[in-house]
């Protein structure tokens, strides 16, 4: 199994109490909450923490893209990837991912990935996502066309990476007379494309397609949902007439490890609860704008009135406790043995091949993150990397 290290780069000094006066920590949280001095410290720490992944023995590091939020300070994840290329020599650098529908010219994304691929001599993994619902509020891109734009942008980028230029692109959403990438990509035929997702059948069908076989990475999900989605991917592959390889199956989860369960819980509690309750506050209208999902899924969601984090602005505030998140298996908190056995369980059921550990999350400070990374790397990771 490959093991990659990931952080969202949250703004750790967010005034949580004052933030509750606002609809969300996304889009509308005034940026007066951001102190550049503290933010600069965060950037420096996060880049240091991720750079340590190489000496610690990880197979890769991951960054991702989010906009206008304290939840993650990487509106331009490629900038961090670029810094990490300079700080590492061997490991993969995965951008999980770029939100394709949010740009008006996907060639910008193709070009930047091509640059990173050359600069790293082929260490780049290119994640493709749609961006979350809130980002359709912040960018004003019409969520109704999110799926269409994603698919067309994907087709355009892959063609730009693999076909000789210049060529013309005559599309529904993008029209370009000259597609002619300078530089070309370093890896052949192109950098690996990964699809991070919370799992929808449409995405699974698309990613598992025999012409794509894109590794599927289930993020932020309860253990049952992780297993269900990975099994769905495998079943889809079988339906297409092939067996999914373990390298196509991934899972990303927050992990906190310590020598005792009690210590692990005590040290991670406030940071994990902050992540799920204070940073991930998204009322349904922001999480799922009209058209972002199919009519059918939105109807189901409205029927059950579910949303990540707070139920809604000013609505009842049902906090997700650490205990609950552990019970669901959304987070892995415990001793090396308990965490290892939880990952093994998923591995045995699904043939999982990529595990993405989020070892810094929410407000977790540098000291605890460093210790968490070191212990995960020495006590858990070697066992995972040995698993076939």
């Amino acid at each position, binding site marked *: 199994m490959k093991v990659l290290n990931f952080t969202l780069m949250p703004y750790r000094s967010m005034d949580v109490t004052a933030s509750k006066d606002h609809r969300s920590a996304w889009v509308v949280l005034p940026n007066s909450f951001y102190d550049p001095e503290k933010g600069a410290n965060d950037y420096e720490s996060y880049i240091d923490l991720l750079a340590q992944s190489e000496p610690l023995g990880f197979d890769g590091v991951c960054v991702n893209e989010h906009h206008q939020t304290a939840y993650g300070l990487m509106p331009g994840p490629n900038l961090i990837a670029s810094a990490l290329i300079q700080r590492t020599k061997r490991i993969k650098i995965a951008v999980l991912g770029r939100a394709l529908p949010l740009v008006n010219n996907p060639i910008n994304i193709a070009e930047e990935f091509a640059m990173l691929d050359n600069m790293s001599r082929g260490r780049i993994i290119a994640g493709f996502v749609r961006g979350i619902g809130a980002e359709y509020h912040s960018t*004003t891109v*019409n969520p*109704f066309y999110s799926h269409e734009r994603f698919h067309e942008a994907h087709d355009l980028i892959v063609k730009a990476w693999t076909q000789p230029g210049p060529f013309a692109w005559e599309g529904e959403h993008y029209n370009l007379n000259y597609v002619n990438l300078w530089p070309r990509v370093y890896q052949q035929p192109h950098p690996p494309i990964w699809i991070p997702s919370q799992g929808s059948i449409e995405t699974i069908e698309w990613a598992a397609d025999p012409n794509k076989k894109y590794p599927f990475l289930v993020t932020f999900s309860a253990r049952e949902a992780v297993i269900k989605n990975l099994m769905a991917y495998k079943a889809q592959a079988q339906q297409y007439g092939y067996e999914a390889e373990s390298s196509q199956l991934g899972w990303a989860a927050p992990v906190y490890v310590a020598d005792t369960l009690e210590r692990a819980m005590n040290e991670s509690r406030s940071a994990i609860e902050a992540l799920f309750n204070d940073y991930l506050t998204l009322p349904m209208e922001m999480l799922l704008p*009209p058209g972002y999902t199919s009519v059918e899924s939105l109807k189901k969601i409205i029927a059950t009135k579910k949303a990540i984090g707070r139920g809604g602005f000013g609505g009842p505030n049902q906090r997700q406790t650490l205990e609950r998140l552990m019970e669901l298996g959304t987070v892995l908190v415990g001793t090396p043995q308990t965490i290892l056995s939880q990952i093994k369980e998923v591995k045995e059921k699904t043939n999982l091949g990529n595990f993405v550990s989020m070892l810094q999350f929410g407000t977790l400070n540098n000291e605890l993150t460093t210790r968490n990374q070191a212990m995960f790397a020495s006590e858990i990771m070697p066992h995972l990397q040995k698993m076939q």
Partner: protein
Amino acid sequence: MTDPNSSMSTCLVGNVSLNLRRGGSGRPILFLHGAGGVSEWTPFFSELSKTNEVWVPDHPGFGLSDNPAFIKNMSDLAMFYLDFLDTHAPQIGFDVVGHSIGGWLAAEIATRNSTHINSLTLISSAGLRLEGTPMGDIFIWNAEESIKKLIFDPIVQEKRLNAQPTPEEAEIIVRNKFTFAKLAWHPRLFNPDLKKWLHRVKVPTQVIWGEHDGLIPASYAKLWAEVLNTNECHILGECSHSPTNEKPVQTAELIKSFLGKHPL
């Protein structure tokens, strides 16, 4: 609400089927609904249909009408309605009344071609931007906020808050929202190119607004009246974004009196 004089049928425009409510007789009025759609023959329609033949189609993608993929934006919808008018408009034409994005639609149609249009009444209309006076963010509001912003009377707000839609109604609510986003997400609720062409509207125009409109502030009424060069600009007190529901009799009276001033 049922009205013995109203009926529901479908009508074809090309191969697109529209759900159409009709009632009354007299000088024909075409009502173009807003983003919430139309779920019944309301007191406003009853009032109008006492003296007029009132046509209320569900727009493509709304209510019970078809949802053709080729309608991608407000411009497509306006062109589609020109086809509708060519096919179905009575010989003497329609007086067109549009509410909210239906007002915007009416203005888009009339700038293109007013052959079948005798007059234009825009109620709480989207379509223009008044710089420095942003509209409310209806896509970020939750259901409760929307009701409180869109309706003035707290008693009516309360009634709406407690309403439990049937599964069929819930389906239409979601459908309407999707089409609303398709048409109006960006540029948000307006067309940057509309204002410069509104001088092409040569038919008589009237503007009606709720004084306390929580979505499109009443100052937009003045902008519309100015651009359309009309003196018929009426602001209704104790009313938010839905004069047709909040002040049905008063709104219907304004329309009838306006039409009276402009005999065919």
